[in-house]
């Protein structure tokens, strides 16, 4: 198992390096440069110094080597658009905000979605099933920003239950969390329902029932463990999305998360911030893939890595 993880980590580093390289050259290939508006009116000599300070006077391959060197020392650099603000600061200030919202949304989304899916599966073709599937279709079809605007208008402007926008105490997170988790509730409910239907027709369920096992144990020990695998598969992109946040939701609710930072950085050609955030997202995604692979093993003994297959 340890060997397997180690191998995976090595692959991860390789993937990360490839992503960094591709992003770096692509970003420098789009026209426009980050200092254009700042250095516009400076005398030529001052402008040259300014460019030199950030290494922008060098060729792109030279900049690439410089960037990798700094990265190796754990230095992601400083924003070009907002001098004095380091990329690590931006991540450590804004990522926890996106993370809090994302974790809340994903927990509610996964738990509610799975429970609804199981109910729908067991009550197949009866009214609870129809209700859950109706909600699920709504959840898949309704874009989160429409729901967000709707929630904001009803629960904040008309009935003044929650603050309209901003960030602070827990009540600020209620509306964006609902807007964010509605889609995942729908997705998980649908996944869970179909795999529950698969599982409950298996022979071992019949055997378990015949042994007189309680309904709770049947669902907990036999159904969920077998039915949850497809649902776990769709988890990693969602985990990466947690920290990325949803740009649209963040913008509607004026939440200082990471999403809007990335969009601004791209618009401003703020190279260092774009690179730093890309690395952060990419690392998160790869790590969550690994975590999920390990989770498979925990949930389902059949996919555990045995010593001899890794040899």
């Amino acid at each position: 198992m340890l060997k397997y993880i180690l191998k995976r980590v090595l692959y991860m580093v390789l993937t990360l390096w490839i992503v960094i390289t591709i992003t770096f050259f692509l970003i420098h290939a789009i026209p426009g440069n980050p200092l254009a508006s700042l250095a516009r009116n400076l005398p030529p000599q001052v402008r040259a110094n300014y460019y030199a300070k950030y290494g922008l006077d060098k060729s792109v391959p030279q900049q690439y080597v410089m960037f990798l060197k700094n990265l190796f020392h754990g230095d992601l650099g400083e924003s070009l658009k907002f001098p004095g603000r380091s990329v690590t600061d931006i991540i450590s200030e804004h990522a926890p905000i996106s993370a809090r919202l994302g974790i809340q949304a994903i927990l509610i989304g996964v738990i509610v979605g799975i429970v609804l899916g199981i109910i729908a599966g067991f009550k197949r073709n009866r009214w609870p099933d129809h209700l859950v599937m109706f909600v699920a279709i709504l959840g898949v079809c309704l874009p989160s920003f429409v729901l967000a605007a709707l929630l904001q208008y009803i629960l904040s402007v008309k009935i003044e239950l929650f603050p309209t926008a901003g960030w602070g105490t827990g009540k600020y997170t209620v509306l964006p969390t609902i807007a964010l988790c509605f889609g995942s509730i729908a997705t998980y409910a649908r996944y869970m329902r179909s795999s529950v239907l698969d599982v409950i027709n298996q022979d071992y369920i019949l055997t378990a029932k015949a042994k007189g096992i309680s309904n709770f144990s049947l669902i907990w020990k036999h159904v969920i463990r077998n039915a949850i695998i497809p649902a776990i598969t769709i988890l990693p992109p969602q985990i990466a999305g947690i920290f990325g946040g949803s740009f649209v939701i963040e913008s509607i609710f004026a939440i200082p998360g990471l999403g809007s930072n990335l969009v601004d950085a791209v618009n401003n050609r703020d190279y260092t911030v774009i690179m730093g955030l890309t690395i952060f997202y990419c690392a998160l995604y790869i790590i969550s893939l690994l975590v999920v692979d390990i989770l498979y093993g925990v949930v389902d003994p059949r996919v555990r890595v045995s010593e001899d297959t890794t040899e």
Partner: protein
Amino acid sequence: MEITLEGPCAYFEKLLAFKTMYPQRKDLVEEWGDKAGSEAEYTISCGPFKLEKWTHKSELVLVKNENYWDADKVKLDKVTYKIVEDPNTASNMLSNGQLDICAVSKPEWLEKFKQRDDMTYVSEFEPSVAYQFFNQEVELFSNANIRKAFALAVDKEELVDVLYYGIGEPAYGWIPPVMKVGDKTYRDVVEEPLKKLQEENPDPKELLIKGLEELGMDPDPSKITINMLEGGTDPETRRFAEYYQQAYETALGVNIKAEYVDWPVFLDRVQNMDYELAGMGWMGDYDDPMTFMDMWMTGSEMSNTGWSNKEYDELIKKAQESLDEEERLECFKRAEEILLYEDAVIAPVIYRKSSRFQYNYVKDTMKPLFGSGIEFKYAYTQDRK
């Protein structure tokens, strides 16, 4: 402190209010380096308020500065700025009282708020002009008559209503109505040059055809296609570009192709003269026409059009050095005439205005022409529920 000037400068006192002239603490700026001004803890203030907390992309909290020289007059203890990117969210927040003051420019919200009697609408001139400009290295735009035709092609009255929802005034001059020379308001004494141009040339298409003939080109406008560069890719930029496109095509019979690029690319291309026709805005820095005029001198590189005019350069130089306000006014007047009436280097479109709503319980806010937004020094709230 003592400042020694290299030469006479009639507008020096006005220049002092420009942001780059704000005082700094030398020791702290040196200690903090690039960090200065990047966080609340690296920001100091000698004004009525000081920055206590800055949550990036969320809010700024200002508290009363007890060391301010005029602190007795400051009534508010705290001012909070909310950073909200989505204009609908901001308007929602204003509408249910989570904000006291909010800038509003969307027509549906303007309508809605104007009907409320617990709010006041405030719209004031800004020292700012939106304008179109031409690359004179492109053969077509090397001709003054053709540039004049484009300057007259757009119906500014209609444009202000359609594009800006009535926020702003049609611009027939380059110096906005609020700028002063000494104590005199420039626009009160100098007529707008484009008005004269328009009276003399009721049909801009005739000017265009005349220009084409002067250049020895085919006088059929429908055979001309012009690339219009736009500094944005969002729907709002598209809305603006499509309006201009249609206005030019209808009035002049030419074909306009709009090209949308991000702002940094736009600046790069304008700087490198890699455009044909483009538009942007200019905001003055201090209360003297000089802040609008010296940017068109030869070699200023503020906005590259390829234009250079000796008489213009000399006039502006004279206005820079003269201490006689009458003489300076005459210089600006003549220079503006060259810039717009004779050479049509640029085509001003609107004098911009601010637009905000505030609840009636908010009193005594000010918006200085050259400052950082709304001034709260004397502001207070009364009978707030």
